[in-house]
């Protein structure tokens, strides 16, 4: 376990993972559940255990839509989406580790795609 990484994720997210009572409601309500290797409740549990690097290597960090369903519906106010975001930031803040590059964008465009989609993706996927 990497103690520094765990502290970084806890500080960056502002989440108290110890509040989780493992009811699984976050994962039950997550619209990306099927696409994720690790689900929201597992993010919370694995961060508590300090197993951050496994999460950082998983594509699950790019599947979260930041729709705040888990944040709103958690009966303990744990806010799992903030944990996912902190793990993703720990990854994309690494040198050369952006998940999206501007050179990929032209191939992704169509006539109707709103600018909002592109700026949001860069906020999520790159530094």
């Amino acid at each position, binding site marked *: 376990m990497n103690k520094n990484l765990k502290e970084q994720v806890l500080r960056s997210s502002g989440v108290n993972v110890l509040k989780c009572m493992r009811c699984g409601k976050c994962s039950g309500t997550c619209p990306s559940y099927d696409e994720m290797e690790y689900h929201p409740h597992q993010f919370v549990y694995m961060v508590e255990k300090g197993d951050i690097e496994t999460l950082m290597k998983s594509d699950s960090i790019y599947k979260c839509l930041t729709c705040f369903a888990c944040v709103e519906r958690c009966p303990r106010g744990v806010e799992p989406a903030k944990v996912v*975001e902190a793990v993703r930031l720990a990854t994309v803040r690494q040198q050369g580790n952006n998940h999206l590059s501007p050179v990929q964008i032209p191939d992704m465009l169509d006539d109707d795609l709103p600018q909002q989609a592109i700026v*949001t993706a860069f906020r999520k996927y790159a530094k």
Partner: protein
Amino acid sequence: METFTYYPGCTLRTKAKDLDSYARSCAQALGIALEEPSDWQCCGGAYTTAKDEIATKLSAVRTLNAAKQAGNPLVTVCSACHNVIKQTNYDISNDEDMASKVNNYLKLDEAYTGETTVYHYLEMLRDVVGFDNIKAKVVKPFKGKKIAAYYGCLLLRPAKVLAMDDPENPVIMENFIKAIGGTPVIYAQRNECCGGYVTLEDKAQAQKRSSNVMNSAADMGADMIITACPLCLYNLKKNSGSDLPVYYFTELLAEALGLKEDTNE
């Protein structure tokens, strides 16, 4: 006449011109003056929840401060801008560490500490204009039309911060639909995500999400669906495979007020 500082955001200037132009013409007809700041920046599209993210919150603070300088409340139409700006305002008001870092960077004449009141355009219609007053000004009601309100994710959540409506049983858009003479349709997926920006790299996920939303509305007998978000509109139209018509709520308001040609004839 009430005056609001109006923040359109990046997409309302480009792919979502309808959302913007009808918001402006309707506000004028309803006695609201919208003043656009001269040098606004894109809000970034997504609020970064991390407490150690400062730079990504600055453009929202600049917008909030522009409204404070003008002495106006701030209004946005796009669900994403609304979400980013309200969440940032909440941070500045409640997180001293973040507020001091932001102000240390911006070096404003007077520190910004959360003074501006932020409205979504729908809140402005409800709380400032009043749905009853809108109803009285409707010349072409959507009589007999079953209209499904699509809230998506960004308009209501997190409810503690956005403070707009009940996040699980909202009524603001349904009351708007009643005000323009339509019949609101309640359906299960009205406050679930459309897939958002994931359309860029995982079309299948966006298709699954947006078709769930459209099928849910269609199953409940909707004739059309309305949204406040350009990215929702895109996903629902392009990725859902459904032919249920999707409109911006401002478009229907303009039509009801007699400011636009027919939408659904």
